[in-house]
């Protein structure tokens, strides 16, 4: 199986702190991921993170661009789809190479259909995400990194 550590920066976007905790557990304890994990509690904060704006501007450090974003749908302030609408408009150098996987506890087909319309969304996963699904995403999108 592929080593998850071919990627080194993951952004988790979810308002539910237990979901974040579980995703972190899956990454570090189950998949032995050692890279960076950053968690944002809504789409707006995630956008600020990518653009180095808002709370991220003030503390002076520039944040590395994530390889992978695990994006929840239902969040207050800015939900996953609203985030994607804004993300599309970002300049190329801010989003190039980022893989976005949508992660939701909803079983609604409409959400899935809507997500398909966004070219930036590469996967749509119903929670909870499993080790196999996570490694599958890494393999699919970053597999060539392992060979090179």
């Amino acid at each position, binding site marked *: 199986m592929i080593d998850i550590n071919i990627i080194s920066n993951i952004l988790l976007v979810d308002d*539910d702190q*237990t*979901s974040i*905790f579980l995703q972190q*557990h899956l990454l570090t304890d189950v998949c032995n991921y050692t890279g960076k994990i950053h968690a944002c509690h809504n789409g707006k904060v995630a956008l600020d993170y990518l653009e180095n704006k808002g709370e991220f501007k003030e503390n002076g450090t520039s944040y590395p661009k994530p390889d992978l974003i695990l994006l929840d749908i239902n969040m*207050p*302030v800015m939900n996953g789809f609203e985030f994607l609408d804004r993300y599309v408009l970002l300049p190329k150098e801010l989003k190039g190479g980022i893989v976005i996987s949508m992660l939701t506890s*909803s*079983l609604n087909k409409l959400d899935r259909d809507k997500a398909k319309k966004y070219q930036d969304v590469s996967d749509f996963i119903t929670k909870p995400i499993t080790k196999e699904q996570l490694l599958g995403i890494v393999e699919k999108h970053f597999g060539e990194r392992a060979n090179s």
Partner: protein
Amino acid sequence: MEKKAISVRTKYTLGGILFGLSFPIFSQFIDCLLNDLDFNWASIIIIHQRNVIHYVVDTAPIVLGAAGFLLGLTHQKKNDSNRQLRIINKSLDTLTYKITHDLRGPALNIKALTEILSTSNATLSDTKKEELIDKINESVASWLLTFEDFMSLLRHEKSGALEQKKCSLQDTVSDLIQVLDYDIQESGAKIKTDFTKGPFVFVSGIYLNSILKNLITNAIKYRHAEREPEINISSFDDDGMVKIIFSDNGSGIDLDKYGDKLFTLFERFGEKPEIQGSGIGLYLVKDQIEKNNGSIMAQSKPGEGTIFTIHLPITS
């Protein structure tokens, strides 16, 4: 909706009358033609005298107009109930969606957390175990809270005719201060009231209780991080209505951004993810006020607080 319902009925009635008019006009025109008469009032009177059947034909606009009216009425009733069904269907869709999401989420979390505890129990450190147990407790609490919110929503949607009566604002708030004692003590909230200028409202007591409870809990829940919550509730006589001013010094809401969604079902605005909520409270508040023939308006400054202005009837 009302306007459109009337127009359906009117359309059918007018259609019936116009179609009905064509019968006497056409029959009299033919009869004039057959009898070599000019088509005018004098001839019409003559042909009526010659052939009494014309009197019967003359009633066609009335009969067909009445038929059109009845048809329009049935049609409109059907339209109305269809529309109502569509609205119910739509809110059921939203509700199902929210239930699957909001109740499934914490349930999945509980399942995943307990799985970690049971499968890797031996390798977990004590602090990690404690953290897991804390998370399980939080998720169960969140599940229950959401469940209760949904139940209150369902109860509300189901409730039939209101039993409105003269209710004392002071008594209602005093009762609530006892019920919410724990939250008030814990947050250090101060609630000041002045109902001397408008002591009573004519509403459903259960709704008034629910309205004020939701507003007070919201004020405590979304308090400012750096100060203890202060809630001021006062009432005034305002042109046959009672005006209630409900203000807090909480974290406020950016109404320029969210104003149009403030009272919408399932919308949430809190920037703090640790504060639980299901986006039902303010929707219920507005709906319950409106069902009692009142109104609610909000003003807010982020970081400073929120003021709700409520109007409720003073008599039936």
